[in-house]
């Protein structure tokens, strides 16, 4: 099944858009990949830089064990092969934010081999996207080009931070799939706790490979668009790039394999002015390091500590909690949502919890433009609200009113119910008195009802509820009315 946007109609027929993604995911770790400097975001320039990160003469790298574990964890989460033997290589190129003028990366022998990610598409279908590899490498520093008109300023705080480069096969078709893949990958990383997925801060960055071909034809020549930092921009870049390539091909031209940049302001891709001549990186194994060898026991221990991932969670929600495929899919798509839901559903009826979360809560969050992580209603409070309905304290209608108030104020449901006197009245005596009054005041209607006008029963219920200001327990009201009238 192929998304609607996977095929573009050109002037001379249709074209299939083929996409592969190289995602750079910043590893969650306290220290850098090969030095003991900190990785926190937003520090003053060059304050999180060791002599190693600045490539001072005679300094040497030593690998951070946590970063290796994170890469293995991620590989397992991507259903991938973990290589027992991998090698760190130097990728040689000159750039001022790369202090040694080589990047320590993994080339021929990465730590993680082929894997697969299941991507849920809008239409409910699933596409299996091949992962070619995952390797560990160092991030570069940051070049600021607009701080001075005549010069570039370099901050090395990010230089040497661990990245996982996750390379997909060219299995994606169209912008919809590309977006869904990034979101799914991001969710897996966050479930695993290996990358925070924060695209604004650059913790997740995409290089996008785009080519076009006639449906069924062999792969066309691709262009790589570097460093695109949001899902929306990835989609814009693909869209622009695909159309650019189609125009060239339909005009009788050929695609030149090249690296391009995405200009977010103008929504276009453009050729990099700085053409890296020949792309000759002169990879060779870093002689300052030894090959990375991992034992089965090490990998098994990490496997045993893996959390439940979205696909597994979805199956459990459907099979054990009885949720619909759709609801389960929505709830597992983001770790925070799943966590919230599970907290609400803990010891409660799952379907009810799901309805509250995907219905009322999502509605309010959407309306107010908030994320679930800053929801004013905590999962425990929402659970309490559900309990108030379940034990008859609140009617469903009042519960919604209470929920709105909770979202407004961030207060727990108990307080609101008490303050507004919203407890449902279930006391038989109290309700019987109300019923008696209503029956007494409407003797004519009672006659009609008893003569067979059944529909009038609803009228009596309404009158009693009104008299109770909506607080009477409808079940009890029904019960007593039947006794009195029938």
């Amino acid at each position: 099944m192929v998304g609607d946007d996977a095929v573009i109609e050109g002037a001379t027929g249709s074209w299939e858009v083929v996409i592969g993604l190289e995602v750079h995911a910043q590893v969650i770790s306290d220290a850098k990949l090969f030095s003991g400097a900190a990785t926190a975001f937003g520090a003053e320039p060059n304050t999180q830089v060791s002599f190693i990160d600045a490539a001072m003469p005679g300094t040497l790298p030593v690998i951070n064990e946590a970063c290796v574990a994170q890469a293995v964890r991620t590989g397992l989460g991507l259903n991938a092969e973990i290589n027992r033997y991998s090698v760190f290589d130097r990728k040689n190129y000159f750039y001022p934010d790369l202090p040694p003028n080589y990047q320590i990366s993994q080339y021929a022998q990465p730590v993680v081999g082929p894997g697969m990610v299941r991507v849920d598409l809008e239409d409910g279908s699933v596409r299996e996207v091949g992962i070619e590899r995952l390797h560990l490498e160092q991030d570069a520093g940051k070049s600021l080009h607009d701080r001075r008109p005549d010069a570039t300023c370099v901050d090395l705080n990010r230089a040497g931070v661990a990245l996982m480069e996750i390379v997909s096969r060219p299995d994606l078709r169209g912008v919809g799939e590309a977006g869904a893949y990034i979101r799914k990958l991001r969710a897996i990383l966050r479930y695993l706790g290996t990358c925070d997925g924060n695209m604004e801060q650059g913790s997740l960055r995409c290089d996008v490979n785009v080519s076009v071909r006639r449906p069924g034809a062999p792969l066309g020549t691709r262009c790589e668009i570097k460093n695109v930092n949001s899902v929306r921009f990835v989609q814009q870049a693909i869209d622009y790039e695909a159309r650019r390539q189609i125009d060239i091909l339909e005009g009788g031209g050929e695609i030149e394999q090249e690296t391009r940049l995405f200009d977010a302001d103008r929504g276009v891709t453009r050729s990099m002015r700085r053409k890296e001549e020949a792309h000759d990186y002169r990879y060779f194994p870093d002689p300052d390091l030894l090959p990375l060898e991992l034992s089965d026991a090490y990998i098994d221990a990490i496997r045993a500590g893996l959390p439940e991932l979205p696909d597994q969670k979805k199956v459990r929600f459907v099979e054990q909690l009885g949720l619909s495929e759709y609801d389960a899919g929505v709830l597992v798509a983001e770790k925070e949502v799943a966590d919230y839901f599970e907290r609400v559903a803990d010891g409660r009826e799952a379907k009810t919890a799901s309805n509250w979360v995907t219905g009322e809560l999502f509605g309010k969050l959407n309306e107010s433009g908030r994320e679930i992580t800053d929801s004013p209603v905590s999962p425990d409070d929402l659970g309490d609200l559900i309990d108030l309905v379940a034990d008859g304290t609140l009617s469903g209608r009042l519960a919604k009113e209470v929920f709105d108030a909770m979202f407004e104020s961030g207060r727990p449901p108990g307080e609101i119910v008490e303050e507004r006197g919203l407890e449902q009245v279930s006391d038989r005596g109290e309700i019987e008195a109300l019923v008696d009054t209503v029956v007494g005041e409407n003797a004519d209607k009672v006659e009609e009802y008893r003569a067979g006008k059944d529909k009038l029963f609803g009228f009596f219920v309404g009158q009693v509820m009104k008299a109770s200001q909506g607080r009477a327990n409808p079940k009890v009201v029904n019960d007593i009315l039947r006794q009195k009238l029938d």
Partner: protein
Amino acid sequence: MSLDKATVSRIARLARIRVPDEDLERLGGELDNILSWVEQLGEVDTSDVPPMTSVVEMRLPKREDTVTDGAYPEKVLGNAPESEAGFFVVPKVVE
């Protein structure tokens, strides 16, 4: 085999060493001599031989994930030919 000027020039560019045109030929000759000499390695049958990865039997040591270094920008920048406001400064880079 001989190293032509274009090759020497390409290598010099990759190595980021400026070699004036008038020196290309001389340097090409020198490199050529060395390369011709090392090419005797081609005689050795290495079909089943793995490349050396480490001369001593060792496993890659790993460090703990704790912040133990950094927080000395004045030392990092202390030898810089040009710096400003905590940054290294280089000629304008155009992407």
